């Protein structure tokens, strides 16, 4: 028994020291700005809190559809608005709510876009390992930022600058064979519903936006696999009932996505060229709202100009 207690104490001390070590290293490896102010936990899950306070005009919440379809740098270059993809793979409503809550602690965006596909995701169906990985990622931030050690071994003085603002740049092409519009009918065979708990989270998000004077917009980016007429109708009803604006790129085909060249995976996600079209449209939409200011030329936003330069270099 005595040996057992001794081993238990030893294990606890080992783990405690380990946690201290990890926390210490996290401070070295995490994006600089917000480690002290917001604590490592938040910086880990929500990259946006490492952005300069009150510098973001609009944020986009959602799953992989967001970070593959919307490039904030394109919007910045054409309109001078600062936006951020607050997206996570297979994001569920509770995580989107957490993200929004964390983001508005340091930012006061005028616009928040929610990619509506997440309304249809059942949080309960998220595999356990993904939930565990999400939690582990929150508490052990170096898992996400471990590769930042490389930034200490580079001559580039901008190596710590977040260039893509949540967007993931993909140029690969896997053409889709599906017809431009028929996919909306094809996908109608799938049974979908918006769960009451998702509506509850959605209502809370509306409340949060109202309290912070933010305009909330629902959005459905082009996707031949994830979207359908049924989903459109359900979200349209929801948006109308809440008095919200709803932009569905799958119905209003103004973008004219070329599914042979502008998708990375046979129609599910867009690639860079598809994202350019979506971003251009959203920039124009933001301009029409009259809520935002063009920050190009503003010295406070110099880092965005630098980031765009690096972003453009990457595209070459």
């Amino acid at each position, binding site marked *: 028994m005595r*040996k*057992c207690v001794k*081993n238990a104490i030893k*294990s606890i001390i*080992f783990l405690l*020291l*380990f946690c201290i*070590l*990890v926390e210490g*290293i996290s401070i070295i*490896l995490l994006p600089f700005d917000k480690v002290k102010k917001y604590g490592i936990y938040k910086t880990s899950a929500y990259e946006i809190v490492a952005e300069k306070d009150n510098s973001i005009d609009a944020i986009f919440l959602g799953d992989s559809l967001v970070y593959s379809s919307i490039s904030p740098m394109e919007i910045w270059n054409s309109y001078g608005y600062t936006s951020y993809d607050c997206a996570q793979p297979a994001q569920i409503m509770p995580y989107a709510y957490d993200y929004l809550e964390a983001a508005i602690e340091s930012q006061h965006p005028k616009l928040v876009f929610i990619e509506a596909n997440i309304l249809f995701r059942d949080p309960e169906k998220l595999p*356990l*390992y993904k939930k*565990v*990985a999400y939690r*582990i990622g929150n508490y*052990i931030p*170096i*898992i*996400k930022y*471990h*590769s930042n*050690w*490389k930034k200490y*071994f580079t001559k580039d003085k901008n190596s710590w600058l977040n260039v893509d603002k949540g967007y*993931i740049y993909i140029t690969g092409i896997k053409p889709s064979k599906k017809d431009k519009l028929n996919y909306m009918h094809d996908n109608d065979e799938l049974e979908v519903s918006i769960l009451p708990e998702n509506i509850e989270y959605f209502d809370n998000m509306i409340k949060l936006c109202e309290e912070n004077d933010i305009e909330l917009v629902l959005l459905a980016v082009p996707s031949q696999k994830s979207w359908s007429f049924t989903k459109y109708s359900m979200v349209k009803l929801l948006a109308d009932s809440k008095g919200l604006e709803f932009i569905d790129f799958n119905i209003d085909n103004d973008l004219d996505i070329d599914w042979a060249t502008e998708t990375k995976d046979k129609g599910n996600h867009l690639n860079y060229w598809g994202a350019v079209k979506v971003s251009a449209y959203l920039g124009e939409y933001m301009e029409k709202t009259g809520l935002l200011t063009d920050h190009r030329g503003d010295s406070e936003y110099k880092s965005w100009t630098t980031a765009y330069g690096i972003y453009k270099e990457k595209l070459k």
Partner: protein
Amino acid sequence: MSFFSPVFAFVFIPFVVIVYNLFPKKLRAAVLLAISLLFFAFVSRWLILYIILSIISIYLSGLGMQAIEKKKKEVLKTVEKDEKKAVKESYKKKKKFVLVMCIIFNVAFLFMFKYFNFFAVNVNLLLEYFKVGRSITIVKHLAPIGISFYTLEALSYVLDIYYGKIEADKNIIRLALYVAFFPQLLEGPIARYQDTAEALYEGKKVTFESFTFGYQKILYGFAKKLIIADRLNIIVKEVFEDFNSYNGISIFISIVAYTIMLYMEFSGTIDIVIGIGEMFGVKVPENFRQPFFAKNVSEFWTRWHISLGLWFKDYIFYPVSLSKTMKNLTGKAKKKLGNHYGPLVSGSVALLAVWLLNGLWHGAGWHYIFFGLYHFFMILMGNIWEPSVAKACEKMGIDRKKKGYRIFQSVKMSILVFIGELFFRAPSLAVAFAMLKRMFNAFSFRVGELFELGMDARDYVVLVFGLIGIFIMGILREKGIDVRENISKKKLVTRWLIYYALILLILIFGAYGQGYVPVDPIYADF
């Protein structure tokens, strides 16, 4: 499920250990078996039926063969001396019948899941060639996890009973646990009944010492996989998927990278299996013994995937080479070709059987068969040339035991192995040959080219340091030094510093997250 997922290593394993320890010693084997079967069902769902059928088949066959043996002994006591031979023959036939039926039963599943489509595709090609208006339907289905591994384990059990090496097990839980022990299901090693069955059944408590010792081995496996294998995967994916865009040296680098990646992934997984085994007081056999220190291809295969090599040696090579036909052949060949080349004839026939099956075991595809034949050819050539090489070295005054010559041998052997692994990795024989052709036809070198393969200078530095670390560990193991044992004798502070360093090295320098694609468990499809 990958063993390298944090959920498996740091949630599932501790959970299993806690549940296992909560039960009294007598019930622990049953608990471990239940967990193993649940693990199997989690990955392969209803296909669990097949592993259960395999276990029942070997259980009944084992008891059947034992009963025949017992009966034979009883009958032998009652018969006259001159009848004994006939009685022995008759019972041997009965035993053989049971064995053959059991082998057919188990191999049939393996064939159905792994080889049927390969067979069907090739038969259909023949039917088309001869314009027969019929074809075999291709069936798409998933195979039960680790079917190639547990089938060989199951067969080794009945074969060992047949050869009288072990007694049949009357306890089906012990036998089932030997076949289905969950860490071994994914990538082996192919243990023998006498290696693990008893220890698994014993139900030893997982102690603090065995738990921490086991985790040290698991961490070492993680380091190999995350720091080295997943980093090399960048080069491998880049070049193998678009080899026409790269010149000879890049293709060669990718082939070397693939072989090292395969070694790190596979041996890393085995480290995890061994580590888990150690927790439960089971000594799972080692599957790797510094393979790149071997001096020829033949020795390489006694150090790489050892358990598979031993299986083929015991159950294919020896039975074939020691069969009556082969003995006769050896006798005749010795007279004509002498004492070195004579036995080589029958040995080569057995070797050909081993390598054909070895190639097929690795996968249903012509490139796998070629992979097997390539190694057969290399080993055969090594055996044939050995006397001439020995003579030549003697004439030139080269001491074959000297370090320089040994390094030369290892480098030569490694290059031959790298080429063999190209056939293993390439999606088809045609692609493998096209890559080989391009490697020689478009051979040029620029230092800058190294950085066009997807890895930057910092990745290369981590890789080189990682490989140096593994190399030093290899030398220590080769010298019989048990590093973990030595660490355990050090003071607590030193010990903990080493553990922290290893964990942090994996966490920081591991090639995971954005920008990296982890290597899929390469042997898990077998």
